[in-house]
């Protein structure tokens, strides 16, 4: 069934992160399955601690033109949380002095923030090595005012990372909404037209695959090759890399798992696929996530669970990279999503 409203708008119990964390800490994790803390302790990896910052991920708001079935942000047109220009300025002050090599803008649909273009222009001026915008593709086709986004991104040498759950219409629309596949295809063609994703092009275009249901992603390289073949043959579309991301059991995806009676099997599958190697490079060790209102989190998932960093510095206005380094990462059972199989992060798999 197509989803049209956020859990927040529906006043669903799971809109409250406390209720999500309660579910993740009870039930099967009381006696059947080990908690994430126990599991990592067994391989002498507790607590996970932040290393040197490499990726600064900024969530500029939860508003989105889509309402995806799996969305961990619970984003949608009815979400009004939007980063102000003032907070963006505080972020820019940090971007200017950070040692991070990657700046990663996400949302919602980040382009829907009224100050998005100003922010991109200012941030691009700093000359950070890799400047990512996570674009849902359909926004480029959603309204005339967004039609020039491919040229805008090109002008500022932005690296585009976009979600594409499958190379067939059926699976894509089921997860992301009716008509999303066709619009995404058009947007990808527009991006190709200005040079994005072409072989040897410095304009990077990567796709994100996440499973459209209660199962884990398989081998990233095999999926990338299937996607490349199908998108090239069917639509003459090219892209650079495919990142396979595991759906974490929080927010809308948690709601789906429970409603479809898949929650226990999914958690068993995550725990069974636990890979201690993936813990070593899990993204919270080199990433910091900033919310629309300027608070700091170990990752975008912890942001949605309202688990602020365990540090004296919790807001971008008080940012101090040295103080944040070495902090203990806050964990719960959702973290199994990042350590399953080859691991999962916003940049795809993390282990062999």
């Amino acid at each position, binding site marked *: 069934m197509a989803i049209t409203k956020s859990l927040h708008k529906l006043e669903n119990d799971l809109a409250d992160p406390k209720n999500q964390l309660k579910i993740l800490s009870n039930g099967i994790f009381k006696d059947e399955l080990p908690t994430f803390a126990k599991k990592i302790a067994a391989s002498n990896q507790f607590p996970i601690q932040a290393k040197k910052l490499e990726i600064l991920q900024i969530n500029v708001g939860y508003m989105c033109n889509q309402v995806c079935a799996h969305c961990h942000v619970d984003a949608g047109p009815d979400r009004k949380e939007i980063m102000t220009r003032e907070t963006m300025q505080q972020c820019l002050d940090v971007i200017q002095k950070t040692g991070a090599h990657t700046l990663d803008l996400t949302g919602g649909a980040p382009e829907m923030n009224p100050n998005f273009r100003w922010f991109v222009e200012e941030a691009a001026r700093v000359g950070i090595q890799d400047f990512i915008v996570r674009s849902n593709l359909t926004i480029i086709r959603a309204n005339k005012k967004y039609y020039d986004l491919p040229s805008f991104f090109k002008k500022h040498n932005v690296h585009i990372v976009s979600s594409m759950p499958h190379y067939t219409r059926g699976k894509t629309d089921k997860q992301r909404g009716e008509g999303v596949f066709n619009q995404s295809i058009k947007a990808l063609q527009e991006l190709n037209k200005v040079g994005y994703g072409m072989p040897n092009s410095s304009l990077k275009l990567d796709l994100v695959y996440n499973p459209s249901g209660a*199962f884990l992603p398989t081998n990233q390289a095999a999926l990338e090759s299937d996607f490349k073949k199908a998108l090239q043959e069917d639509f003459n579309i090219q892209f650079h890399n495919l990142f396979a991301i595991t759906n974490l059991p929080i927010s809308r995806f948690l709601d789906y798992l429970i409603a479809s009676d898949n929650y226990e*099997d999914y958690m068993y599958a995550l725990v069974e696929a636990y890979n201690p190697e993936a813990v070593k490079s899990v993204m919270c060790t080199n990433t910091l996530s900033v919310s629309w209102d300027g608070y700091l989190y170990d990752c975008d998932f912890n942001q949605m669970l309202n688990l602020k960093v365990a540090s004296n510095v919790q807001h971008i206005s008080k940012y101090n990279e040295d103080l944040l380094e070495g902090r203990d990462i806050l964990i719960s059972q959702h973290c199994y999503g990042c350590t399953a199989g080859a691991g999962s992060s916003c940049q795809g798999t993390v282990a062999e």
Partner: protein
Amino acid sequence: MAKTYYDPADLRKFGKITEWSEALGNKFFEYYGKVFEDGALSAREKTLIALAIAHTEQCPYCIDAYTKDSLQRGITKEEMMEAVHVGAAIKSGATLVHGVQMMNKHDKLSH
């Protein structure tokens, strides 16, 4: 409470068969894992073969496991159903080809 021979939750306990015969169980799982690795056939092709056989063997655990495995590998439902038809075609063909034996026997016994 209704009791059934098959419980979906038993599938995740499959590994426990090693508890009663460790050496043989481990050998089996090692062999099983090896079989499904990329080789002359891709792991994707092997999944589709397994899915078809899961149906001809009518093993509910295997059907659950290889439907999920197919989804994980990005295999479409059209590909999955075609694989099941391959299994069904072999099953029905295997039934019908015995019709020749019936015909032979019939003719031998008849004037």
